[in-house]
């Protein structure tokens, strides 16, 4: 007997692969999606009786292709130009041999994250086509009304088709830029999952899990790209702390106060191994450095034993690669641990980040540690104005209240 859960598992694992192969075979994303959905519908009917086929992905792809061709033949007789073109396209390729070609998902990733598409469209398409998330799920995850998200996806797919955004892995000259866009989309999905920008809950586990899953696919497909390894390591190490990051009641627990026995040791080990593997290649990049910073935290049995000097050094490197005030802010936090809160505050006060809630929250904490209670309270208030999600707001309110009555 094949359970619904098993079929859902196959769906999650294989949807992106099937859509990717069918997109190449049919030359059209909408047709590919339709065909794959047809095939899954057939699987739900058949598999409970027949059991899982030896290669569920192969079965799905062959079924999807056959059904798509049947449908196209029916439509092509009605002189549908679009269907004829797709049928012509489908005639070229035998999907079985294509199963061996693992590049299809990679092609699809690069198409979804093409720079001619807005970032919001890149994210939506990646989750839809590679992650197999429904439009409703993506809309919920990004707190956008479903019709808005549906329109965003339809427009993006329309642009891919009409403007002929190519379906291929970019050549070597373009690859660094284009890969950066793919990595940025995965990290954006992960971050939205990790610190939901608004709403009730701090973490949307489903988005984190999806970003990590796609990160693994990318690493499998591009094992020699150190930044892809770095991003996966970064996500795994951050994710490893999730069980300790909130209390049972959903309140935020800062890194320094987390119960480190609750960190997911398997994820830590995997993340650290990846950090070592990518850094050995000697081509450091921003994701690798951020992963390395997180690996230093993961190394420390408790907050006091954190090697903050090492972290400052890594932030120096990161700042040199990506000079941004937000990176400088994080560096200042590390400096405060090495040289004291006054040194950290001096750096923070030199940053032009007045509208960033994290800036005020870091300042507030440094002022609190320096005993400058009144200023700390005002900084917590400023941080509260900008913070989006309920858990973050509650944390800032609690911290502000701990300063005592004004």
């Amino acid at each position, binding site marked *: 007997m094949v359970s619904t859960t098993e079929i859902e598992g196959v769906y999650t694992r294989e949807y992106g692969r099937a859509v990717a192969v069918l997109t190449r075979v049919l030359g059209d994303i909408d047709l590919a999606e339709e065909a794959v959905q047809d095939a899954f519908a057939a699987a739900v009917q058949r598999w409970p009786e027949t059991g899982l086929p030896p290669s569920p992905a192969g079965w799905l792809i062959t079924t999807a292709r056959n059904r798509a061709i049947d449908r196209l033949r029916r439509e092509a007789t009605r002189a549908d130009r679009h269907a004829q073109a797709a049928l012509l396209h489908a005639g070229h390729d035998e999907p079985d041999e294509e199963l061996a070609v693992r590049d299809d998902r990679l092609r699809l990733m690069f198409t979804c994250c*093409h720079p*001619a598409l807005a970032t919001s469209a890149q994210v939506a398409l990646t989750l839809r086509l590679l992650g197999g998330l429904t439009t409703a799920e993506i809309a919920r995850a990004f707190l956008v009304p479903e019709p808005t998200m549906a329109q965003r996806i339809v427009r993006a797919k329309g642009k891919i088709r*009409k*403007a*002929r*955004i*190519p379906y291929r892995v*970019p050549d070597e000259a*373009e690859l660094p830029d284009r890969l950066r866009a793919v990595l940025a989309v995965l990290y954006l999905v992960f971050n939205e999952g990790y610190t939901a920008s608004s709403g009730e809950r701090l973490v949307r586990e489903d988005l984190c899990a999806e970003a990590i899953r796609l990160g693994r696919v990318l690493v499998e497909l591009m094992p020699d790209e150190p930044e892809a390894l770095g991003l996966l390591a970064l996500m795994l190490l951050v994710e490893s702390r999730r069980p300790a990051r909130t209390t049972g009641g959903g309140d935020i627990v800062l890194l320094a106060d987390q119960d480190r026995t609750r960190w997911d040791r398997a994820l830590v080990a995997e993340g650290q191994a990846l950090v070592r593997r990518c850094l050995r290649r000697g081509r450091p990049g921003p994701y690798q450095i951020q992963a390395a910073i997180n690996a230093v935290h993961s190394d420390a049995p408790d907050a006091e034993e954190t090697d903050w000097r090492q972290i400052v050094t890594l932030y120096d490197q990161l700042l040199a690669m990506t000079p941004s005030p937000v990176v400088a802010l994080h560096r200042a936090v590390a400096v405060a641990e090495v040289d004291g809160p006054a040194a950290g505050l001096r750096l923070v006060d030199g940053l032009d980040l007045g509208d960033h809630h994290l800036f005020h929250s870091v300042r507030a904490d440094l002022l609190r540690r320096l005993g400058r209670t009144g200023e700390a309270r005002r900084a917590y208030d400023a941080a509260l104005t900008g913070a989006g999600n309920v858990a973050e707001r509650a944390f800032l309110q609690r911290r502000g209240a701990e300063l005592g009555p004004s």
Partner: protein
Amino acid sequence: MTRYMLSVYQPAGDPPPPEVLEPIMRDLDAVNQEMRAAGAWVFAAGLHDPSTATVLRADGDEVLVTDGPFAEGKEHLGGFTIIEAPDLDVALEWGRKVAHVLTLPIEVRPLKFDTH
């Protein structure tokens, strides 16, 4: 192959003086030659000032005539090139060259009918 229109958007006001414009036009011509050599070039045109435009609007059986461009703006369509390219990446590559030469925004937009 898909045809794309590369539209040049230029700011309102007088064009730059000849000593600035001439080298730019020379470079643009070189890009056009390169497009021709690659078989990508289909057609190109520069437009006169928007003040030379006339707009016609159907109104029942009548057609109203107004002086001036359809939309007044800080930028207007100054010219365009139609190219043929296998995909958007190739079209963007040509657009990039034009943008680089003109230092003006270039809009790349697919035409509706493919040529096969």
